[in-house]
């Protein structure tokens, strides 16, 4: 693969992607389209962030962030998601080098870390509801569960997608369109980590202080 790409670069003098040299390859167009989707997803989250920022002080006499949030849990969740982003990147790298064994190893690690994140988040939610802090308790809690729950739902669907991609690699091998889907998945996973940076900063660090 590296030999063909060097041979490809050699005869080509026009900067690609600026109208010279014909339309962009599928790989770049697909990544661009998926990037637009991810940005629209981030805009969805910006609405939820705005709602949380406006409503976070309205606890209606119920429990507040200081009483509910645990720094330790938030830190563990953050690290799980961050390392899963790293292993996902290494998985995509193994795919680019056609190493199916490393790909499966790193994506399995990503799945375990992501699943641990979702499990901790669910136990956190169940604990809060048990302590008398369900979403219906106050505007603060409604916006908290909506924001963090939407992120958790995205991670859960990401895990399903991840398992599906591993199965596709087993069934079909590293074909062109399978590779494109894996690249889209890794973009999705990294974007979820970016959203989580906003969540732990705004919700857990600013609200739990």
């Amino acid at each position, binding site marked *: *693969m590296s030999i063909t790409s060097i041979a490809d670069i050699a005869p*080509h003098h026009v*900067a690609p992607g600026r109208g010279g*040299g014909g339309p962009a390859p599928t790989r770049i167009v697909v990544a661009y389209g998926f990037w637009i989707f991810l940005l629209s997803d981030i805009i969805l989250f*910006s609405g939820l962030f705005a709602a949380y920022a406006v409503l976070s002080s309205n606890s209606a006499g119920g429990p507040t962030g200081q009483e509910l949030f645990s720094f330790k849990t938030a830190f563990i969740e953050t690290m799980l998601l961050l390392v899963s*982003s790293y292993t996902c990147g290494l998985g995509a*790298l193994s795919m680019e080098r056609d190493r199916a064994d490393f790909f499966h190893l790193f994506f399995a690690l990503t799945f375990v870390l992501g699943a641990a994140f979702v499990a901790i988040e669910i136990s956190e939610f169940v604990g809060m509801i048990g302590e008398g802090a369900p979403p219906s308790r106050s505007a603060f809690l409604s916006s908290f569960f909506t924001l963090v729950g939407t992120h958790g739902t995205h991670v859960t669907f990401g895990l399903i997608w991840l398992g599906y991609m591993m199965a596709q690699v087993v069934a079909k*091998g*590293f074909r062109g369109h399978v590779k494109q889907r894996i690249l889209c998945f890794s973009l999705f996973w990294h974007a979820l980590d970016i959203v989580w940076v906003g969540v732990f900063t705004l919700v857990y*660090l600013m609200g739990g202080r």
Partner: protein
Amino acid sequence: MDGDDILHLHDRTPGVRHGEATADFWTYTAGLVFAVVLTIMSFVVAKTSLLWGPGIPVGLIVLAFAQIGVHLVFFLHMGTGPDHTNNIVALAFGMLICFLVITGSIWIMMNLHANMMPMPHPMGLR
């Protein structure tokens, strides 16, 4: 796999490079190290009195933006290459919309809150 690779080669648009290498192991590792350092800094700043009290939210926002930048560059490979021009423009537009939604909402709701008539039961919505 070999046959598939050849197919893929013939499939591509003329005049365009095939499979531009964007990252290696060290890109991701450097990104992870930077992100972990920034995360730990965020938690330390929030937990201790390292920063002047009222300045802590500003410090946290700065650290969050730094970490988002690290993620974009090291994990999503946002670069300055010609392939990335469209992605960067889309990102700039997305950031503009996010900025308008978040600051606009907070600004308007703060104003409404400040101009609210005092109510006899502030918690009357229970």
